[in-house]
């Protein structure tokens, strides 16, 4: 094993243990737990209200808990036709109709809102060490590359743990608020989407770590991370609209560097699309991380 890799592993392990001691891990877990529990609870309430309305219109019975009508609806031919007409890709429509409502909600919520949490929580990872000059205890002992990679690996592991906690918390709320709810049937779907969501988040982690390497103040790094995030979230849809032949092809570049569009591939049921989207997301994360490192590797610390 190369010395660089050993150092990177050492730094990642130390940072991960440090996140327990500093209660950073606890803050992450509580935040992700609260967001998951709160949003799933609201989802169940909304679903229950919608189902009551549907039951009233269709003059059918509805139970105490939410989910029964939705499940019947998902199986009904008419609803399937509506969804198939709305979504142009039949494979994706089938996938959406085959997933339990809770999984659909968890995946949608995670893909949509968790990136913001990643930007807020991870943008100060390296900037904090620069500000306190803690880097000065480390960087005469190892390379800058090993240091930032170790910190990034630790942040990525922390993110996976937080997503797992949020997925399981959603399931616990679902078990109490939804009916029918087959815990062991839903679990593999949730775990699968936890992994997909984690890979998707790597792109945003890359943005956060880029900001963290560019600034010496944690606050400035967070602001830079957020500005980049919002810019890319706006750029993605605009680039998709404007892309066309000739010079308009340049807009495809905007689409390429925006993490948002990559999510479509992760919704697809086939592994090939999933892997392609995952590779794009991870690659994009690496791209932003590398931009940050380009400056970090040369800057005064």
């Amino acid at each position, binding site marked *: 094993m190369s*010395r660089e890799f050993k*150092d990177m592993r*050492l*730094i990642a392990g*130390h940072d991960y*243990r*440090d996140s327990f*001691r*500093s*209660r950073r891990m606890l803050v992450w877990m509580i935040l992700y737990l609260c967001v998951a529990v709160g949003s799933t609870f609201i989802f169940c309430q909304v679903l229950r209200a919608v189902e009551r309305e549907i039951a009233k219109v269709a003059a059918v019975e509805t139970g105490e808990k939410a989910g029964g009508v939705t499940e019947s609806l998902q199986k009904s031919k008419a609803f399937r036709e509506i969804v198939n007409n709305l979504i142009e890709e039949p494979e994706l429509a089938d996938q959406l109709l085959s997933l339990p409502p809770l999984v659909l909600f968890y995946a949608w919520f995670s893909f949509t809102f968790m990136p913001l949490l990643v930007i807020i929580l991870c943008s100060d990872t390296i900037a904090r060490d620069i500000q*306190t*000059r*803690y*880097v*000065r*205890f*480390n*960087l*005469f*002992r*190892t*390379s*800058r590359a*090993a240091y930032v990679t170790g910190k990034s690996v630790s942040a990525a592991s922390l993110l996976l743990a937080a997503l797992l906690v949020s997925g399981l918390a959603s399931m616990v709320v679902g078990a109490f608020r939804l009916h029918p709810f087959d815990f062991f049937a839903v679990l593999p779907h949730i775990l699968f989407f936890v992994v997909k969501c984690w890979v998707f988040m790597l792109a945003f982690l890359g943005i956060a770590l880029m900001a963290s390497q560019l600034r010496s103040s944690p606050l400035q790094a967070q602001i830079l991370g957020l500005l980049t995030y919002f810019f890319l979230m706006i750029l993605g849809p605009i680039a998709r609209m404007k892309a066309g032949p000739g010079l308009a092809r340049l807009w495809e570049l905007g689409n390429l560097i925006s993490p948002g569009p990559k999510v479509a591939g992760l919704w697809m049921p086939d592994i090939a699309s999933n892997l392609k989207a995952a590779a794009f997301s991870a690659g994009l994360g690496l791209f932003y991380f590398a931009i940050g490192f380009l400056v970090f590797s*040369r800057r*005064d*610390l």
Partner: protein
Amino acid sequence: MTANVFALEIRNLQKRYRRHVALKDLNLTVPRGAVMGLVGPNGAGKTTAFAIIAGLLRSNGGSINVLGEGPYDPVRHKGRLSLLPQDAHIPGHSRVKETLVYFARLQGLAHRPAVYAAEKTLEWVDLSDRADAPVSTLSHGMIRRLSAGQAFIGDPDLVLLDEPTSGLDPRQVVRIRELVLSRRGRQTIVVSSHILSEIEAACDHIAFIDKGVTTRQDAMDNIVHRNRSLTIFLTRPLTAVPDALPQQFPEVSFRLSDNGTRMIVHFQDGHSASTMNRMLLPVLFSMGIDVEEIRRGSDLEKIYLEDPANQH
């Protein structure tokens, strides 16, 4: 050739922070095994120089040769250089021993030797009883000792200590000095400090830096003339050097300082301090001049303050 003689060679080092020039023309040669003191006022460029040597800052010119292998490189110098940074903070939630084990492992030690080195260091800096405590529960002095300890972990060849005694009480200052002295000859140590008496007590080489320029550099013995001068502390001040002294010792020069309370005696290389004492004291006593104390060489503080290169 120089690789065998010098642990550190700096030639015409320059560093600018936008318009501010931190290092203008820094030159330094530190022999292997030496304890070199870096003396200079605030803003002289000591911390900047340390940071450049350790690869934390980039220079704008000049050259550095660390341990005979060129400028700092994380691969080439792995585990061979260490630094006690001045204003850096170890996170408060980190545990004392675990932090040292982590630093030792990054220094290149395997797990078991790293644990052993951390335990030895804790004994050495007298923090064994706080091994499992969070850093935030330590006093300023303890943190400074911990920081000093981490600089020696893994026995690096070159140790840079930036103001190791700043903010410490006298007892802790003595402890840090003892730590440095215990390593003399085993490692090359470069230490910056404002406390000249500390530098004088701990270092065998010294360099004066001012406004990013090395104004003077030599062995401590040569700077304070340990082998060529005596400082005699008088009980009663004299208004002038008695005529009889230069007449009796024509090859020796005498001068009064500090309002006549000290007599500085410069003698030729052929004499030793002890023979000078033997010859001089009876004469002084016979003249009714009472002596409180005799010191070899001159006071570093006086030499530094009287050196025209260090005048502002």
